[in-house]
């Protein structure tokens, strides 16, 4: 089996990134485009651009029937889902299977299992991998308090039906446990009409560490080491790096082997990521497994030298992995910045606008995976991520320096982006020391704010005035006498 023609059922930077590799290895390519979308790099790379219709662009990219039908119509024998949209949709995989089209990713069964967070957690726990201690009241209400006590302190009580932080209580001591359970139960009843509770170990100052895995579905699984993703805003990552500054070599081997073990347990096929919560005391707990290529996969490519999409396509074509764990080494350090159209000073409010001027950074160890073109526009139709800036250096300080230089050289004018904010993160002493947790951005919000100083403001005003053609023309046309007088009417 081999892939002759690949449809990328995605858009933006990831579509462009997948298409580049597919073309390089000689596969014919096609990509989707909704009529409301502006041209993006993907549309200039693909051999074929196929129109997809839908009430909204997002609805179109989620339309399983239409995408399968388009794939058949253009004669695609494989579909790469990218990330998001249908990448982890078991029904999509089923529909492609039925149509005889290869899905570049894991089986429907594995997507189903890992998509159900409670089933996945139980599955992983039963096989001896670490999960955060927890107790679900529903399992046996009579023993709930007893089991909650066994979870250990500090612990977090949550209403089972809850969300948005309501009714959540952190318990640090045995003496507070029963009172807090009663309070949480009353709040659960009040907010959600449901007093059933869930208790889990509360990890203070946690890190988010994940491991890239790859399997061939034929019994072979390897890992491509870890990624540190603790820099998050609104529970979404905006800066990732590898190696993690938190891990010792022994801890690194341990967490990466756990991830590979979990993938081995399900005879995993394709690229996947096992996410862990990492506690300051070195403990780590399975969080979830993402059965797709991740946004942040390029940092792994930078330090291992592998093209993960090429590996995905090889495995999807039925080839064996053909790699030993010892073939995969981490060399140097890599950092990824997610460039988003948003105002970091206004609670990360998404920004829209026309891209009036764009200039991408270049230099040793600099890679840009972009979803935008100069002259394009940014709308609210899709996710605000515009592009990714990825750098590689011989060590972490060099990677940080290169990331800062590249972020400062990246010119995007016409729409507000978080480039300056990302640079401020890189410049922060705590980030540079590597001592961060998932609370870093919230804790350091004030320190990361930036106001132009007086000199900068003067420069900005002069530049604005002198580049205002109507203003300059009007000034030049003023008769000499008024020019001499200036303009003030007193």
């Amino acid at each position, binding site marked *: 089996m081999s892939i002759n023609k690949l449809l990328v059922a995605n858009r933006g930077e990831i579509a462009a990134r997948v298409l580049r590799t597919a073309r390089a290895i000689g596969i014919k390519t096609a990509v989707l485009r909704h009529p409301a979308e502006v041209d993006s790099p993907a549309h200039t790379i693909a051999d074929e651009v196929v129109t997809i219709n839908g009430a909204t662009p997002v609805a179109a990219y989620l339309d399983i029937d239409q995408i399968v039908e388009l794939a058949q119509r253009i004669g695609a024998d494989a579909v790469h889902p990218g990330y998001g949209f249908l990448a982890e949709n078991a029904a999509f995989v089923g529909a492609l299977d039925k149509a005889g089209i290869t899905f570049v990713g894991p089986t429907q069964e594995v997507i189903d299992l890992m998509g159900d967070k409670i089933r996945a957690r139980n599955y992983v726990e039963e096989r001896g991998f670490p999960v955060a201690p927890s107790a679900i009241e529903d399992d046996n209400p009579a023993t709930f308090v007893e089991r909650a006590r066994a979870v250990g302190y500090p612990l977090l009580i949550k209403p089972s039906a809850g969300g948005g932080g309501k009714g959540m209580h952190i318990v640090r001591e045995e003496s507070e446990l029963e009172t807090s359970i009663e309070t949480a139960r009353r709040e659960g009843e009040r907010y959600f009409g449901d007093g059933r509770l869930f208790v889990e170990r509360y990890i203070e100052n946690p890190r988010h560490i994940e491991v890239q895995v790859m399997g061939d579905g034929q019994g072979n699984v390897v890992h491509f080491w870890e990624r540190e993703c603790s820099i998050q805003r609104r529970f979404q990552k905006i800066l990732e790096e590898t190696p993690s500054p938190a891990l010792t070599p022994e801890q690194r081997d341990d967490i990466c082997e756990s991830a590979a073990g979990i993938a081995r347990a399900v005879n995993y096929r394709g690229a996947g990521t096992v996410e862990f919560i990492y506690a300051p005391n070195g403990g780590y707990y399975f969080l979830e497994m993402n059965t797709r290529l991740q946004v942040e996969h390029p940092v792994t490519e930078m330090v291992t030298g592998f093209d993960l999409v090429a590996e995905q396509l090889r495995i999807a074509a039925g080839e064996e992995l053909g790699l030993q764990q010892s073939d995969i080494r981490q060399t140097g350090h890599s950092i990824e910045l997610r460039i988003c159209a948003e105002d970091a000073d206004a609670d990360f409010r998404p920004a829209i606008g026309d891209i*009036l001027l764009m200039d991408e950074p270049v230099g040793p160890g600099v890679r840009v995976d972009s979803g935008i073109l100069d002259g394009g526009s940014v709308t609210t139709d899709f996710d605000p991520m515009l592009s990714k800036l990825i750098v590689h250096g011989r060590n972490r300080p060099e990677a940080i320096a290169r990331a800062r230089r590249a972020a400062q050289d990246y010119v995007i*004018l016409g729409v507000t982006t978080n480039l300056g904010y990302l640079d401020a993160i890189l410049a922060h002493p705590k980030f540079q020391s590597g001592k961060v947790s998932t609370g870093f951005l919230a804790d350091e919000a004030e320190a990361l704010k930036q106001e132009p100083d007086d000199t900068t403001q003067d420069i900005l005003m002069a*530049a604005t005035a*002198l580049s205002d053609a109507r*203003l300059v023309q009007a000034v030049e046309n003023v008769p000499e006498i008024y*020019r001499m007088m200036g303009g003030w009417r007193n």
Partner: protein
Amino acid sequence: MRRILEINGKETPIWLASTGQSQVLHLGDREIPCTLDPATGKGAYTLELDGTRISLRIAVGEEATFVHLNGRAYEIGRTDPSQTLGESGGGAAQDQMIAPMPGVVVSVSVAAGDDVAEGQALMVIESMKLETTITAPRDGTVAEIPFAAGDSFGGKEILLKLEPLEEAE
């Protein structure tokens, strides 16, 4: 020639004049000689400000100017105080007139409930020592005038509202 520039929510009035050789930026009571020349690169310019040469990138949008300076991008809002009110607001401006900047009401010549014709003078305001007459953007009926002569108003405040037009058939 005046502009109101907005940086990070802060509005600053500026005045640009020319000496023939260079321009002079009036900022409050400061007068800063400056010139701007194209440089090599996309949107690249050299700004000479008070004798200092500064490299920057500039993109001029409809209502704002974007500047990339020392590795940071900035957005500077521009308002031309002499521009007719209502012009800038687009469709909604047909029903309400919004102050582009803070100022004082000089006189009001109509009252709520009055029928007005397109082009009719409705009120006179003064902002930045510049008087502007606000005229009716269309035929209609005055719905509301929140300010009287002598009142001061802030930027973006509604100065006058017309009754909305009946929904088109």
